[in-house]
């Protein structure tokens, strides 16, 4: 049970943490103590698949001397984390998910921190010792996939709220000519403006780009109205979550969770070797693509056959 709550692996010698008398700390292997600074993984909730995926790939890339805590399973997680940091004295703490980061940032004010698997990492309160891997794939990379998979799609509509995604929209518009695309971005001020914005935009574009936006996607009814309106005009939707592919999105582009864990591992290596990474937040380097073949066939879209090996999941023809 305790193993599930808090797993700790030491490499031979007992550490100050083991002297706490805290039964939460479990010494295990008999390998010699490494001279390398230690790494601590703080996971918000290891039962969440995307958190578990990043966790596993991070460990797989580094191996060896890693300690870990699952906050969701720990009793008194903040005290457990505080004790663990004191005992392990990690050179780097890898935080998976928002809760892990926010708690670690509170209790470990002088540690080098890497954070991933959290929405809007770039908006987190951050010190110079904090580095992150974003969850969201940058606009130009998504647009490259649009061109790769659907080379005939040229005009792409984008609805967004200026408060949340103004920068995203500007970045997309700034790069569309380089990709031989035209991004038609229209701001939506409040959820009730969505139906009118959709009716005005859809007739003018080949496809609609759905991004995580709390004003545009205010509730389930908003999602339904977007898909219904787009379907009535046979306009493809390019989405940011594979769940939308089941609803009929022609394409969904998400970040590859395992790659995020591996990127965090490389970042940890850099930090432990005293090298300062370029940029506080890195974009995810790996992608996962889902294509709905039924939608592609129904809308008579041209899917580039050369790009098929790049597609991770297909929603089959009915």
């Amino acid at each position, binding site marked *: 049970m305790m193993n599930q709550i808090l797993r700790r692996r030491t490499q031979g010698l007992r550490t100050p943490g083991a002297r706490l008398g805290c039964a939460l700390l479990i010494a295990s292997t008999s390998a010699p103590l490494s001279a390398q600074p230690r790494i601590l993984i703080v996971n918000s909730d290891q039962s969440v698949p995307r958190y578990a995926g990043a966790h596993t790939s991070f460990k797989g890339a580094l191996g060896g001397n890693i300690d870990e805590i699952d906050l969701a399973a720990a009793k008194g997680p903040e005290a457990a984390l505080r004790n663990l940091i004191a005992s392990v004295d990690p050179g780097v703490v890898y935080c998976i998910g928002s809760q892990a980061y926010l708690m670690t940032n509170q209790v470990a004010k002088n540690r080098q921190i890497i954070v991933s698997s959290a929405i809007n990492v770039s908006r987190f309160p951050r010190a110079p010792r904090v580095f992150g891997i974003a969850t969201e794939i*940058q606009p*130009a*990379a998504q*647009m*490259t*996939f649009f*061109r*790769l998979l659907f*080379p005939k799609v040229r005009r792409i509509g984008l609805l967004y709220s200026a408060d949340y995604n103004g920068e995203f929209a500007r970045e997309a518009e700034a790069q569309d000519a*380089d*990709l031989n695309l035209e991004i038609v971005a229209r701001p939506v001020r409040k959820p009730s403006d969505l139906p009118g914005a959709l009716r005005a935009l859809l007739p003018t574009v080949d496809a609609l780009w759905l991004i995580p936006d709390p004003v545009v996607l205010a509730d389930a009814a908003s999602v339904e109205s977007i898909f219904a309106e787009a379907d009535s005009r046979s306009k493809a939707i390019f989405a940011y979550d594979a769940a939308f592919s089941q609803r009929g999105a022609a394409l969904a582009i998400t970040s*590859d969770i395992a*790659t995020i864990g*591996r*990127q965090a591992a*490389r970042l940890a*290596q850099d930090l432990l070797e005293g090298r300062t990474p*370029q*940029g506080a937040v*890195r*974009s*995810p*380097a*790996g*992608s*996962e693509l889902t294509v709905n073949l039924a939608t592609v066939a129904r809308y008579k879209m041209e899917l580039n*056959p*050369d*790009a*098929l*090996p*790049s*597609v*991770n*999941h*297909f929603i*089959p023809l009915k």
Partner: protein
Amino acid sequence: MVTALWASLGAAGSDTHAQAPVTIFFYSAESNINNFSSLKAEFDRYLAAQGPFRFQPFSDRATFERSIGAEREGVFVLSSWHYRNLKDRVPMEPLLVGVSRNASDHRLALSVRGTITSLDQLRRATVASAVSDEYTNTLLRQMMPGTGRGSDRDARVLVVPKDIDALMAVGFGMADAAVTTEDGLAQLARANPKLAGGLHTLARSERVLLPVVAVPRGVSDAARNLVAIVEAMGKDAEGARRLNMLGFDALKRLSEAEIRTLNR
């Protein structure tokens, strides 16, 4: 047409097949294909129409090797590099090779951003690659002989799902270099010419055969029949679409020269 081929080739052994489906075992260290659920569903659907066959992709190399080591009736699809590493441990007969754009081999390229002009600048760099860490290091050693780089200690490989991810990782600053197929470079050039224009190739590998199809030595006719069905897949649209998912347009019989290359 493929159904007809199965009927003509497999009728004699159909009773046996009904009891024990013949399996295609797929693992590729040469391409980081990870759409396993889609691959299995698509291939199983296609093969079921041809006879008692099924498709089993593997994500883990060790499990794949254990499985084919114990298999006497299967068909194996694996990278040519992996075949050469395995052939002394697992007695196999290579029969087919993948074909992409009318070629059964390709080269891999080491691409960097414009600011990097020499191999020396790549020491301790992060190299993005869509193939396994081990194979990437093999390629780096081949592409950069005598530079001091290329040992496992120096190469920091960031494994990503696909070639275009590796190239975009360099273009957008998440990695310093990328090892990809030349096809991957061409794909990026078509999709995002400006980004591709900012990259240049520092080194290229020797030509490498595409993945091969092999059977265990002394295999039964049933497995050879399945090989014939797989060989014909590139000739019909549905079969070709599935082969595209593996990264090739068709499969062809290995030439004697190609077999000699594989068995060197």
